[in-house]
C-alpha cells in the first residue's frame, strides 16, 4: 500500500428491500454509473470485516447510511466526523453487521492504518418491506449528491 495510490472511498450501506433503509446503498449505486474515476465506491448491505482492507487502503472514507429523524446515538442528518471505536469486542461484536467506527478500528488493528472518516446520514421515513425509497428520502438523496461531491473534492 502506498500513499500515492490511496484514493477516497465511499461506502453506501443499506437493505434495499427495506424501503428507506436502502438509501445509502442506492446513493452508492448511482455513483457507480458511470464507473467512478479517482475514487472508489462500494454499495454494501452491511459492514463486514472483509471491508477493512479497502478502508485501510483509502485516503479518506465516507460512510453513507439512512437514519431516523434522530439516530439512536443522538446524531441527526448530515455529515459527522468519525473516530475508530476503542474496542471491537463485547456484546456488540457481531461480524455480520459492524458499525462504521468498528470497521475503522479493524482497519487499524489488522492493517495498521485508519484513514480520516466521516458519516453522512440520510433521513429515512419508511422502513417496511419495499424496494422503493419514499419521496422524501428520494429528495434527500438528490440533495446529498452535492455534499458527496464536495467531500470527494476534499471540501467537506
Amino acid at each position, binding site marked *: 500500500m502506498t500513499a500515492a495510490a490511496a484514493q477516497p472511498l465511499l461506502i453506501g450501506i443499506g437493505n434495499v428491500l427495506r424501503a428507506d433503509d436502502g438509501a445509502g446503498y442506492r446513493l452508492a449505486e448511482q455513483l457507480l454509473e458511470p464507473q467512478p474515476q479517482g475514487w472508489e465506491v462500494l454499495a454494501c*448491505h452491511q459492514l463486514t*470485516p*472483509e471491508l*477493512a*482492507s479497502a478502508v485501510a487502503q483509502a485516503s479518506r472514507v465516507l460512510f453513507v447510511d439512512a437514519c431516523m429523524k434522530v439516530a439512536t446515538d443522538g446524531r441527526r442528518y448530515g455529515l459527522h466526523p468519525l473516530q475508530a471505536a476503542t474496542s*471491537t*469486542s*463485547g*456484546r456488540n*461484536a457481531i*461480524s*455480520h453487521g459492524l458499525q462504521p467506527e468498528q470497521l475503522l478500528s*479493524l482497519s487499524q*488493528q*489488522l*492493517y495498521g492504518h485508519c484513514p480520516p472518516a466521516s458519516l453522512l446520514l440520510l433521513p429515512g421515513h419508511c422502513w417496511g418491506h419495499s424496494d422503493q425509497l419514499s419521496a422524501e428520502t428520494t429528495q434527500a438523496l438528490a440533495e446529498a449528491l452535492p455534499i458527496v461531491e464536495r467531500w470527494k473534492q476534499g471540501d467537506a
Partner: protein
Amino acid sequence: MAERRLIRIDPVTRIEGHAKITIQLNAEGVVESARFHVSEYRGFERFCEGRSYTEMAAITARICGICPVSHMLAAASTGDKLLAVQIPPAAEKLRRLMNLAQIIQSHALSFFHLSSPDFLLGWDCDPQRRNIFGLIAANPDLARSGIRLRQFGQGVIEALGGRKIHAAWAVPGGVRSPLLAATRDQIRSGLSEAYAVVEQGLAVFKHLLDTQLTEELEVFGTFPSLFIALVGEGNRWEHSSGSSCRGLRVMNSDGCVLADGLSENDYGTFLAEAVQPWSYLKFPYYRPLGPDGGSYRVGPLARLNLCEQIGSARADQELLELRQRGGRVVKASFLYHLARLVEILASLEQMEELLHDPEITATHVRARAEVNCLEAVGVSEAPRGTLLHHYRVDENGVIEKVNLIIATGQNNAAMNRTVTQIARHYLCAERLDEALLNRVEAGIRCFDPCLSCSTHAAGAMPLHVQLLNADGALVQELSRG
C-alpha cells in the same frame, strides 16, 4: 435428595441460525440426556408452491446469506432435469468453479471466524472476547489471513455472478454469463495468498491437535455412524453433480461400503425422515437401517471419508495425514475442523486446474429448452454436506411440490449425540461453569450447522406443549404429530 435439574444454553452462539441446547441432570446430578433444539422455522418448501421453476434458483438462494450459492446450484441442477438438457461443458465447469469458491468462503468463515476463537483463545476465555474480534486483538496475523481467505472466496463468487451474496447467475440450462479472460486472470492472481493462508491455518491447527486438543478428539462427537456424500470418477472427492460425478456413496465406520452409485433421483428409496416434538429440524436416516441404525453424517468429514483420493497433490498429502491422525474412516467429529481446512486446499487446487482449462472462458454457457419433465431431483455438495432439491411442476413449469433435504438436517442425529457425549463427559451438578457449557456449544460448531437453511417442512410438524405453574409443576400437556 437433590431434584432433577434442566440446564439451558440459549442461544447457541457462533452458528448460522437460532437454536438452544437443553441438558437434563437426574436427581443424582448426573447428565441424563442432552438435546439440540432448533427453534426457528422458515417454510420455504410451502411458499415456493405456485412459483415458476425458473425462479427457484433465486428464491431458494434467499434461504440463507451464507449458503446461497449451494441452493442456487442445486436449484439450477434440478431445473436442468426439468428441461431435460445437458448443459454446455463451460457452464458445468463454471458452476464447479463457483461451488469451490463457496466451499472456500464458507469453510473460512466456520474455521477462522466462528470456531478458532475457542481453540486459540481458550474454552474459558471471557465470552465477550471469545469471537473474531478477540482473535483479531490476540492474533491479528492469523485473523487477517482468515478474513482475507473468506474475502477471496467471496470475490470469486462476485466475479462470476456479479454479487457476493444472492447472485442470480446459475439458471436451468447453464449459467447467465461466461467468464472473461481478464476475470480469470484476476482470480488466478489471488491464489498464491489463499494457499499461504490455508497452509498457515493447517500448521496452527495441527499443532494444537498434537499439543492441546487431544481430549477433544475423544469426546467431541466421537462415535460410529454412517457417512454419505457424492463421489467422483475413481471414487475421487466430489462436490458437484455433473459428468464426473458417480453418485452418492454410503459407508459405515468400519469402512464397509453399504451402497455406491446411488442416484439422487431415488433418494426416497434410501433416505427417510423422522421427527421429534422438541425441534423444527427433522432427523433424516438411511432407510435400509431404520432410524436407530441409519443415522449418518454428511459434510467435509463424510466427503473425505468416502473418497479414495482427492486428486490433487497437496490436498492428497493432507488427506493422508488426516487418516493417520483419525483412521481410514475418521469417527471424531472434532476433525470436521481439520477436514474443512483440507477441503479449502483441495478447492484451491481444483480451482487452479479449472482456471488453466481453455474451455473455462468459452462463451456458450446456456442450453435453452421448455419444460420436458414434470418432476426432478437435483443434488450438490454444499459446504455443510449433501443438498437435495426435489421439485414437481405442472406442464407450464409452475411448482406444485418442493422437498428440500438440507445438509444440517442430515447431521441432526449426530449433533444431538455429540452434545450428549460432551455433556456427560464434562458436566454434573457440582461441575457447571460457562467454560464447560461452551464445550457443549462447541460440539455443535464442529458441524458448522446452518439452521436458516434447514427448517422448511410444513404440515407434518410435531408439537409438544407443556403448561407449567409458577412452581414448575406440570399443569397441562398437549401433543400433536
